[in-house]
């Protein structure tokens, strides 16, 4: 490994060097590999439901011009926004409580695990039977999908906060609530944000799954329709758009994370290469 020691390289560097140092070439490289493998596989062994890369790209742009897609996105995202909002608002405090009160944790642990491992697809029929097909059940499913990630990571985050800081805060008479807000929350923030990112991913999955399996509206409905009609490029075009949305949301979360945890950069061990 090259080291960071020695005089730092001069600030103005050769073009080649700058290119090699930036992220872009690696991103482009992996993308090209990915696209080529996809194209070749689809051409050689593809079937009715496996479009080529090129077809998918075309279909994706086609979809983007289609008002039906935007309508579907709008409907689907209602459940996502509400459901994920609930997951964060409820999950973070619950995670902190569990990290802070070991007794509570010991008793609730089993249920957290159960929530984590229950295949939601299996209980969808039961969910439908109990709360019906409306927005509520979609919201519930999104929340159930994402909240465990938030809780588990928040809890771990709290556990890794330096206990000396809690002592310090208590010595200044911080109430339990203040300890939460001032020490546990910021100290656990990097881990919490990881949980939020994971949860966000899961929430998008939940949003689509519920529409696939329960009430085929919006994006899930589009997927089922394109699949039923064997319109593979449109099918995967829709999926690409869903993933793009998820990635966008995750980058927003990352951006927030960087804004919220600037101190993490001075003492983290990440190799800057």
């Amino acid at each position: 490994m090259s080291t960071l020691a020695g005089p730092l390289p001069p600030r103005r560097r050769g073009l080649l060097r700058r290119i090699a140092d930036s992220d872009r070439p690696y991103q482009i490289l992996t993308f090209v590999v990915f696209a080529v493998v996809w194209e070749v596989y689809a051409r050689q062994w593809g079937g009715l439901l496996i479009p080529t890369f090129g077809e998918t790209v075309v279909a994706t742009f086609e979809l983007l011009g289609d008002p039906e897609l935007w309508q579907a996105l709008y409907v689907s995202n209602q459940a996502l926004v509400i459901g994920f909002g609930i997951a964060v608002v409820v999950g973070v405090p619950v995670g902190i409580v569990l990290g802070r009160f070991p007794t509570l944790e010991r008793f609730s642990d089993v249920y957290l695990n159960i929530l984590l491992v229950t295949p939601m697809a299996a209980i969808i029929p039961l969910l439908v039977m109990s709360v019906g097909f409306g927005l509520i059940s979609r919201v519930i499913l999104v929340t159930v999908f994402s909240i465990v990630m938030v809780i588990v990571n928040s809890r771990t985050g709290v556990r890794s906060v330096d206990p000396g800081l809690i002592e310090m805060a208590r010595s200044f008479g911080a109430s339990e609530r203040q300890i939460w807000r001032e020490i546990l929350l910021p100290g656990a923030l990097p881990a919490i944000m990881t949980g939020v990112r994971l949860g966000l991913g899961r929430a998008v999955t939940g949003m689509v799954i519920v529409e696939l399996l329960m009430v085929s509206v919006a994006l899930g409905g589009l997927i089922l329709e394109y699949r039923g009609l064997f319109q593979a490029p449109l099918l995967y075009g829709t999926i690409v758009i869903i993933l793009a949305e998820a990635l966008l949301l995750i980058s927003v979360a990352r951006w927030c994370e960087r804004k919220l945890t600037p101190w993490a950069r001075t003492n983290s061990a990440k190799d800057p290469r």
Partner: protein
Amino acid sequence: MVGGRQLTSAGTPGLLSPRRLPAGAISLAVGAVVWEIAGRIVDQPFLPPLSAVVARLADMVGSGMIVGSLGASLVNLAIGFGVSLALGLVVGVAMGRYRKVEAALGVYVYALLTAPSLVFAPIFFSLLGDGRGSIVGVVVMYSAFIMIINTASAIQTVPGHLVEMARSYGASERQVLLQIMLPAAAPLIMAGVRLGVGRAVVGMINGEMFISVIGLGRIVTQAGGRFDGAGVLAILLVIIAVALGAVALVQAVDRRLTRWLPTTSRPATPSRRPVPAGARKTSGGKP
């Protein structure tokens, strides 16, 4: 109020870990009672009382349906989770440590984490056929990415001064990874592994529900289709038992690996007194 782990364990050293078991058992028992009562009160097919579900389960076990299915499912689970764990650690550490790896792979890892695996059923089917391969693939899909991301984040939060210290002793990159990064990141990594193992179990069932319909997934699909609440829940009990076993295993490893972790938690004894005077006199272990 005052004091940390040393306080709670002062009189009962070594009792800490066995104590976990009864806690789980107790809360499960409470949950069971609540379920039974709720089930009786609600009296709806979607919430049959626990007794009915257990009876159904006994029935299913008696007919040999479950045991046979379970074996094959568990093998799929083990293979899939093993692959995921290896991927999770290797790719996760690489992404956490090297910015360029993260740049190259980040998008795909997040995309695949987010993707509802169901929609990839045709791809698995096309790539891996309708047998074990597809189901193992689904298990990997479900569990690997979450572990990769958690591991990467964990690695990124390792305190820089420890890495500096190790490098000052000439630690090689490999040694920094193995001796500093992994132990320091262990708590967060294990949190991810725990999520991963749970997801793997879900993947196993979903693979059996949404690609080729076999094993437990088949039983649960059929029960769901009949709105046989008791049947669905009976299978879920089995799945949850399997998963809890797997998670417990991970947690046991976790506890071994992260024993050093200081407590940020409040002590289990909620007394506001620093400790009743003299209460621990005998436990002090004065020579």
